[in-house]
């Protein structure tokens, strides 16, 4: 791996799904022309946030090779991941990129003992550090604040959600990956447990040089841990940039809406305006122009017809005509 090569380089990927039944058949672009890259030199936590159904999970799955992109390429350490064929290559790939799933209760088979996942992982990936299988498991568990003593002989339902989620992280860590893809890892757990996981991520990045793609609806934790954030809406990344910038001063109208909608546990932010929600997803997916146009307060005539490009503005990229070639800066607050 040469130093100037990105860790992960996503080139214009698109994933089309056909939806609908017999007569009402549509193609939707669950992920539409998304490009992203994560640097290899310094680990970062990249948050993917955005609407439900905007393609976050699909994007993550494509990175994980669980879903094949319809168009575009994903390079991992310079190598096209679709070219991975043999089991050996797969193992190597998976050793580097590990997932953490949303629902800790779903992430483990209720019929299997937890330790079997740990042993299985340790056995299949050769250690980069030394140590016996037992040691590697133990040290991974220690990292997440657990120990083998608490896990041994237990089934998933015997642990709390928070514990399970940690086991899930520990399992991923045994492989000592460079990149963790965490799809809503904290949405099912309460505030206090949530913090323990999120702190763990932070630690991993800071102390163990693990990059993380963190998918969440919880923008407060996103702000808390991540470096960059990408906001998705109907398959597109509509805004991407350093988390401090994007959340402090969102540009894209959707990001703004998102930012406004965040419920702060202390403030008395009363929302004054009613907001419009999409009804039938597929209709919105099928829209021409900007997918957000029908719900956007600041929509321009062009928004209805042409899809805006992704433009660099103020240290971030925004996909909105307000910042595009046409009306650069006119409405920027």
């Amino acid at each position, binding site marked *: 791996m040469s130093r100037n090569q990105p860790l992960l380089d996503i080139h214009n990927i698109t994933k089309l799904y056909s939806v609908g039944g017999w007569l009402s058949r549509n193609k939707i672009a669950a992920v539409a022309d998304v490009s992203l890259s994560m640097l290899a030199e310094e680990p970062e936590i990249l948050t993917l946030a955005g609407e439900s159904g905007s393609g976050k999970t699909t994007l993550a799955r494509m990175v994980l090779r669980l879903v094949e992109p319809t168009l575009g390429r994903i390079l991992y350490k310079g190598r096209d991941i679709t070219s991975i064929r043999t089991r050996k290559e797969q193992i190597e790939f998976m050793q580097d990129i590990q997932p953490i799933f949303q629902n800790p209760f779903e992430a483990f088979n209720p019929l299997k003992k937890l330790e079997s996942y740990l042993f299985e992982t340790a056995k299949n990936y050769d250690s980069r550090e030394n140590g016996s299988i037992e040691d590697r498991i133990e040290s991974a568990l220690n990292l997440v604040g657990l120990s083998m003593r608490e896990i041994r002989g237990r089934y998933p339902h015997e642990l709390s959600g928070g514990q399970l989620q940690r086991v899930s992280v520990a399992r991923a860590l045994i492989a000592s990956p460079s990149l963790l893809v965490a799809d809503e890892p904290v949405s099912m757990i309460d505030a206090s447990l949530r913090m323990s996981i999120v702190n763990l991520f932070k630690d991993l990045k800071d102390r163990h040089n693990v990059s993380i793609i963190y998918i969440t609806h919880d923008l407060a934790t996103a702000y808390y841990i991540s470096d960059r954030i990408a906001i998705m809406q109907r398959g597109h990344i509509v805004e991407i940039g350093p988390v401090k910038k994007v959340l402090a001063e969102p540009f894209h109208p959707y990001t703004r809406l998102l930012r406004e909608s965040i419920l702060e546990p*202390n403030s008395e932010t009363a929302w004054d305006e009613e907001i419009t929600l999409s009804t*039938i997803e597929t209709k919105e997916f099928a829209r021409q122009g900007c997918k957000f146009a029908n719900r956007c307060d600041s929509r321009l005539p062009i928004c209805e017809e042409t899809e805006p490009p992704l433009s660099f503005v103020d240290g971030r990229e925004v996909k909105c005509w307000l910042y595009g070639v046409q009306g650069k800066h006119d409405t920027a607050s």
Partner: protein
Amino acid sequence: MSVLRIQNLQAYYQSTLYGVTRNVKAVDGVSLDLRANEIYGIAGESSCGKTSLIKVVFGAIKPPLTIIGGRVLYQINDRDFDITQTNDETLRQMRWKQVSYILQGSMSLLNPVRRVRKTFWDFTKAHEPVIEPEKFEATTREHLNRLGLPAEVLDSYPHQLSGGMKQRVAIALATIFQPKVILADEPTTALDVVVQRGVLQLLRRIQQETKNTLVIVTHDMGIHANIADRVGIMYAGRIVEEGTVKHIFSEPRHPYTKHLIQSLPKIGDKSKRQSIPGAPPNLADPPAGCRFHPRCPYAKPICSVQTPELSPIQDERRVACFLLTKENAHVS
């Protein structure tokens, strides 16, 4: 004016399997007083018994959930009744007309192979057996309209609706008859914040319009902070603190509540947050005394022996902590 009083309610998941009776003490001595025209929030860790409490309050008591003690008294239209004692038919008549319930996980509340209109029809018909189709259509549309929902959802199948829309349809379904009490269990989990906002707005508007009582259960403190009038904090099957939303957030008293509030991250603040140490208790075998004592930094010897009562410490404020009972209110 209270519409619903819960008195020392105990409800366990009882199972006698393999000859051993096991009690999961999901609700263990909860007392609450809900008033007309308020939004009451219930917060707490995962699996501390929030859903169980709501189920009992709604009278949805099916084995293995069993009432061990206590009462759930409704006072609606000058009729008093204890939901733990009513028969099925009264219960059926009362539900939806007086009390309705929005279940946790509303993604799957709608029959996947039935158009939404049919579901509305079923729910309406269940309580108004002689309704004309035209009248039904008109009232339903009006209802949706009032809630700001497009009428086209009626022709859709659930899978065609986005998550937020499904949740709102569930709310619409729960409010067709404008009940006096609405019980909402995690109405927004797994929705993005924008959609969450839409849903909460809707709930709040309904509450404001009909001046009824909305009980909202969630572990998302942000929600409570924003729409509840009063909040009850649950821990391991018990309410440990109750107060107005302002008080709870600005001045949490119970050590658990304190921790909870402190651990919440905020946008614009990247300082380190600590989570509550230790693991949540096993409700099948909860710790004796105050159930929080194993994790409590302030625990005193008495805490592991005696169970603190939920006692008022100031107006609208009740706490169950030996550190804070009236006599010791100054300790903090």
